[in-house]
């Protein structure tokens, strides 16, 4: 409950002797700095340390991921046969609604900007913590509150929300969707919305103000850059969602008619507001994962990133454009300006293409090694390419009129979202797990996890494109044998089960790393960003020492002075006295 003011010389002047105290003896506890305050459960409840909060976020969001993944398996089992009766129609509607809501609102975003970013961004920019540690803690508790409210809506009378994750008016009004489940869904969005806004504020402030000396904006690693842009997008998008949700709640309970025609309202206004949030949300989900991959590929190509500035500007352009394309989700309403939204949607392909070009350019001629994080990054590239190309197709209004609300769209956004949140997300998890816990994950199990996931992913979603083009609408609980969709759906279900099965290897891997830990060392991958300089796990306020920061790869420069591009700065003489470099143990 006390507020401790950290001593002014937390980040000490660099010593010629190198970072003392970086060694195996610091593993397993929080380094040399005495941590004041409570322990055990109370420590978890009261912690304002970004690393503890980041881990809490990750655990909570992974739990929601597995809950809603299990829902997806039930959905696929239901669809594996025509006129199946595994679950009834109402339950089916609740399942796909909650699958989408949990995945999008409570897993994909929070895992990135609450979990990985919370943990990694202060380390990458050389900060002792997030800019507002207590606000950071509040974000987590609001998020946990929102997650609990949404998950518990299954047990109230009337069941959970059942109108799809987009909650279109008038389906979501009090006549069509009565019951507390819908209200809990709305309130959960309110809570998690504020949680996200606070995290966005924190990320922007941390990256703007708490960069270490010499860490100019154009030396910040791309992951942190992307989190900065994500933070700005959060600040644009989530307030709109909150406003929309509050107005819907007022329509349901307080007699307003904002979204109802009877009272002079406009139902399509919900779609405008929702998608003004919803499309930036897609990039709030995607940009952090682009950043993860952009940090991983250079490490496993043993080359600097190709086109650093191009990456930054591509990210900024994607973010700016993404806010001007909301109504491409509404082409079929007939009340939006098709050329405007179609053109802007096409334009997003350009910066995304630049990113692909730079990822490939980074790998080109590099000494590639395919450890698990790199494999998952490759999986991301393939999955996101397919999802992105079908997205360009959908930006064309004639194609969209044909395929709107079919399984083609379902396959498209699952390829985009699984490509980013699952492939790139787990790439980041495998990549930074040694930093977070000071122990390695097993490579063989990781690779089995990857290959099963990769195979299952394609087997699941390629048939969905085909079945969508054959006319199968999304969100239906059954279909007829005469439709001719059975075979493709069965293939898709088999693929989904393979995806589910692949995560067993992930669990085994986690358990094994806790039962038989393999110490990771400070820098197991020979990474170049600042997080690899401190111990694994980092001490209470992250750094006891800092290397000189003269490029976007300060740790690489420090560990490999012979490869340093900028020879002008005066630290090289220190290296000659030291002999062994710190952390370069692979």
């Amino acid at each position: 409950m006390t507020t401790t003011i950290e001593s002014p010389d937390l980040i000490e002047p660099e010593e010629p002797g190198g970072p003392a105290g970086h060694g195996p003896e610091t593993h397993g506890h929080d380094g040399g700095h005495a941590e004041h305050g409570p322990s055990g459960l109370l420590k978890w409840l009261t912690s304002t340390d970004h690393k503890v909060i980041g881990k809490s976020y990750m655990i909570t969001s992974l739990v929601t991921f597995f809950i809603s993944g299990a829902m997806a398996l039930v959905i696929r089992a239901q669809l594996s046969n025509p006129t199946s009766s595994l679950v009834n129609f109402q339950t089916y509607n609740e399942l796909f609604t909650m699958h989408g809501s949990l995945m999008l609102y409570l897993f994909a975003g929070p895992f990135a900007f609450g979990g990985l970013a919370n943990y990694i961004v202060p380390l990458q920019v050389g900060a002792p913590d997030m800019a507002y540690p207590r606000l950071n803690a509040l974000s987590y508790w609001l998020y946990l509150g929102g997650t609990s409210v949404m998950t518990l809506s299954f047990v109230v009378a009337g069941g959970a929300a059942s109108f799809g994750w987009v909650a279109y008016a008038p389906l979501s009004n009090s006549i069509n969707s009565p019951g507390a489940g819908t209200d809990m869904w709305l309130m959960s969005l309110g809570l998690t919305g504020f949680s996200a806004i606070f995290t966005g504020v924190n990320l922007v402030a941390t990256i703007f103000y708490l960069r270490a000396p010499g860490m100019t904006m154009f030396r910040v690693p791309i992951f942190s850059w992307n989190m900065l842009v994500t933070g700005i997008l959060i600040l644009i998008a989530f307030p709109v969602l909150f406003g929309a949700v509050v107005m819907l709640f007022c329509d349901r309970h307080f007699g307003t008619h904002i979204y109802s025609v009877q009272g002079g309202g406009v139902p399509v206004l919900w779609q405008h507001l929702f998608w003004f949030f919803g499309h930036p949300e897609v990039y709030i989900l995607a940009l952090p994962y682009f950043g993860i991959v952009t940090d991983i590929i250079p490490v496993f190509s043993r080359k600097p990133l190709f086109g650093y500035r191009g990456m930054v500007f591509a990210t900024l352009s994607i973010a700016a454009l993404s806010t001007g394309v909301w109504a491409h989700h509404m082409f079929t309403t007939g009340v939006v300006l098709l050329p405007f939204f179609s053109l802007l949607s096409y334009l997003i392909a350009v910066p995304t293409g630049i990113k692909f070009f730079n990822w490939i350019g980074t790998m080109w001629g590099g000494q590639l090694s395919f450890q698990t994080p790199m494999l998952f990054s490759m999986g991301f590239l393939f999955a996101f390419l397919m999802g992105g190309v079908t997205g360009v197709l959908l930006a064309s209004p004639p194609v969209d009129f044909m395929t709107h609300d079919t399984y083609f769209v379902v396959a498209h956004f699952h390829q985009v979202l699984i490509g980013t949140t699952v492939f790139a997300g787990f790439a980041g998890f495998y990549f930074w797990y040694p930093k977070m816990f000071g122990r390695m994950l097993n490579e063989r199990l990781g690779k089995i996890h990857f290959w099963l996931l990769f195979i299952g992913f394609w087997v699941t979603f390629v048939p969905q494109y085909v079945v969508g083009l054959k006319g199968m609408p999304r969100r239906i609980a059954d279909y007829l044998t005469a439709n001719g969709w059975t075979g493709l759906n069965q293939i898709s279900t088999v693929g989904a089960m393979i995806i589910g099965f692949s995560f067993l290897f992930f669990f085994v891997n986690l358990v094994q790393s806790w039962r038989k830990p393999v110490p990771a060392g400070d820098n197991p991958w020979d990474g170049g960003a600042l997080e690899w300089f401190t111990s694994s796990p980092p001490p209470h306020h992250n750094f006891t020492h800092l290397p000189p920061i003269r490029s976007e790869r300060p740790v690489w420069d420090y560990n490999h002075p012979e490869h340093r591009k900028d020879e002008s700065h005066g630290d090289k003489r220190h290296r000659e006295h030291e002999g062994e470099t710190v952390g370069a143990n692979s």
Partner: protein
Amino acid sequence: MRVNGLILTVIGIFFGIIAIFYWFTAYEEAGFLMLIGSALLGLLPGGYYLWWSSRMTPLEGDMPDATVSDGAGVIDAFPGSSIWPFLLGMGAMFATLTFIFGLWLAPIAAALGLSAIIGAVVESRRGGSV
């Protein structure tokens, strides 16, 4: 700070252009207002940063040749631990549930929320300042 100000300002200008273009092609209020809001979100802080970037002492993080010793001194006050965010978060959760399940939950929400706000303020006054 200059780069940060430029980023936000350019984003704001972009949204401004898009908003004007959108209004004169679509004549649709909701999207227009949201785009104007986004433009202001970029322009207000962006303009503030640009204004200050030439007048303030540069941050160590913005100096390309700063050494670690330039950043020596107080970074900021970082609270070690605090129970109040937890109580405030739970208070907010109960407040939202009050809207759904009735006023009987309001006292719990108010007790948690108010104690958290008072506690956090007192905590900051007691030891949080640099």
